[in-house]
């Protein structure tokens, strides 16, 4: 078969043909994988929540979204079988990492004590800033933050007068991480009262009322 000549009509029709086939293929694959992609993201989210919280029975159906103008926090409240509040997982983030965005999930029990955390997304330097994944869980010196209550403990790096040891050679990453933790705590405290109250008075239909937007943004911002 002879090669088609490069006439205008040939070029236009061949290119159009190829792009149309490409578009159809991609649409098909997209439709096939869309649900699976959403599903795996949800599973990942739930997995993260389960690791940072004490054992619980069910979550609020919808997370509370909070925005302080810069960062968005999501609060997932967890209840045991009798609808008692056991704690909340907060998804929090900071844009001040050494290489940009850091996204964490941190769990507080009902007293506001940090139960556990997990890093959802980070691009920090491997071997330095990326150590944040377990650094702040390790019981060594003053680097552990689990079991501490941000209300009584000053969770910032020792360099700036706090009581947490920063990751060696990664102070910026540590600062960004602890900022996200503190921010998460503000998001947590600004709705903890309402949730406890609700579980006590109206145990059956808890989920309905909690979705009200909460306007503590100004206070939260002040603490940054």
């Amino acid at each position, binding site marked *: *078969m*002879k*090669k*088609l*000549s*490069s*006439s205008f009509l*040939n*070029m236009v029709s*061949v*290119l159009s043909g*190829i*792009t149309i086939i*490409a578009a159809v*293929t*991609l649409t098909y*694959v*997209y439709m096939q*994988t869309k649900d*699976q*992609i959403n599903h*795996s*993201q949800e599973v*990942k989210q739930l997995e993260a929540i389960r690791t940072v919280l004490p054992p619980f029975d069910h979550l609020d159906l919808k997370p509370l979204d909070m925005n302080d103008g810069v960062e968005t926090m999501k609060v997932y409240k967890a209840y045991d079988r009798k609808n008692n509040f056991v704690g909340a997982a907060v998804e929090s983030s900071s844009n001040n990492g050494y290489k940009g965005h850091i996204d964490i999930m941190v769990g507080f029990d009902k007293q506001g004590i940090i139960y556990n955390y997990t890093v959802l*997304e980070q691009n920090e*330097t*491997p*071997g*330095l800033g990326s150590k944040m994944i377990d650094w702040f869980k390790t019981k060594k010196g003053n680097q552990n933050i689990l079991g501490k209550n941000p209300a009584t403990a000053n969770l910032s790096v020792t360099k700036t007068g706090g009581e947490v040891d920063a990751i060696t050679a990664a102070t910026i990453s540590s600062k960004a991480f602890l900022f996200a933790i503190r921010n998460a705590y503000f998001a947590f405290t600004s709705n903890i009262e309402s949730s406890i109250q609700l579980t006590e008075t109206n145990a059956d239909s808890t989920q309905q009322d909690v979705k009200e937007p909460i306007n503590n943004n100004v206070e939260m911002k002040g603490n940054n």
Partner: protein
Amino acid sequence: MKDSGFKIIVNGLLKENPIFVLTLGMCPALATTTSAINGMSMGLATLFVLFGSNIVVSMLKNIIPDKVRILAYVVVIATFESVVEMLIHAYFPSLYESLGIFIPLIVVNCMVLGRAEAFAATNSVFKSALDGLGMGLGFTFALTLLGVARELLGTGKAFGYVVFPDQYGALIFVLAPGAFIVLGYIIVVMNRFKKIRRL
């Protein structure tokens, strides 16, 4: 070209290995090989794209007018890349995260376009498929080797299994400079190996 199918595959795997001999597609090779598993998955993703695009380009070689051939190739390659990206995102979410931006960058991997232009555009569909397979395997082999070497020297692990404790690892091998050092030494060894065989 009168090469047998086997020769074409070996050609891509060793004699014209895209990384160690042709040094094509260096960007993903150096950036994603921080661990063995990342390197291998990147290699396999590229293998799929290379294999698919070589076949399609070879099938279309007579109906694509010369003046727009590069455009047409890029569309074909980009389609395969997007398919891979969606599949990885759907079924291997953690892999998707660690490879990140480098999956879309397969489109501009000069190796893929290079094989489409240099081989698939002038050879039969069967040979092009073999070439894609060979080159892809060569690329996968190279990336896996780089990944294993860097992970082992940097963190004392291979494919996530601890070989020796973390603190004896040299962090530099996980960072960018280590990629160049390891690649350099592997190329030295490959060249030596080739010389010995020729003698």
